[in-house]
């Protein structure tokens, strides 16, 4: 990514621990609330979903869209954020 947000940089800089789902790049208050309602109240759970989907971009994007209604940019940001985190820590 040529331009990554501060949120992205902050997230990928360290292990996510107990960070809330809103800490993910692309996930704001509204999307975060919707994910929490579906049971994904921690970023690690979304990471779990990402891994269960085999880290497949298309699948993850579709899942994110279905679960919280994220648009293409938000999907991309979240995917990129998790991918980079995995590259560094997994």
């Amino acid at each position, binding site marked *: 990514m040529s331009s990554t947000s501060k949120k992205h940089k902050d997230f990928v800089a360290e292990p996510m621990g107990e960070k809330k789902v809103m800490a993910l790049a692309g996930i704001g208050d509204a999307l975060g609330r919707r994910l929490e309602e579906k049971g994904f109240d921690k970023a690690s759970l979304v990471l779990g*979903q990402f891994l269960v989907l085999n880290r497949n971009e298309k*699948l993850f994007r*579709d899942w994110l869209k279905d679960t919280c209604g994220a648009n293409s940019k938000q999907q991309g940001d979240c995917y990129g954020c998790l991918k980079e985190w995995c590259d560094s820590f997994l």
Partner: protein
Amino acid sequence: MSTLSSKSDQEISVLLDEYGIKHGPVVDSTRSLYEKKILEAMGNKKKAKPSSDKTFYREEEEEVTYVRYRTPVSVLKHDPLHHINPYLRSRSEYSSQDFVDNTRVISWRSGKQSGREHHDTPSTYSTMSYSNATPVKCSVPVPEEKSHRLIPLWVQFLVFLAVAVFLYFVFCNMESTHSEPFKQVK
């Protein structure tokens, strides 16, 4: 197929493989997503079948309309007015040449088309033909053949005549001034 939700996780996994969908393990959180994917794939498969029939139909249609296109060309050549408008003659020449070129295109296309979608055809026509009328022609039935010109013929005649008359007037006016420089030289 009608009740995907009643199938076991393993059956869902098998279905995903059948449709060539890349997937991870089928667990609670991924189940609904995979079910949607399978439904989409089933829908696409149904769509793919009728379109292949369409391409086949299209092949026949193109070849048939092609033969009909011949007749207007021969009519144009016998047109008594065509000597007034040389542009017309060149058009008929173009269209006859078109015909030759397009037969080649058609025979090539019909061979290729069995596996492709029919919307590819118009693009090839536009690259090969000289006039706009030709690609439209081949997909349009016989009764509408007469309306293949963008500008009607009589309008073209009128414009030509108007331009000719205008140039004639200019020429007439020019003639009077011709004599002056002649005098000056003397």
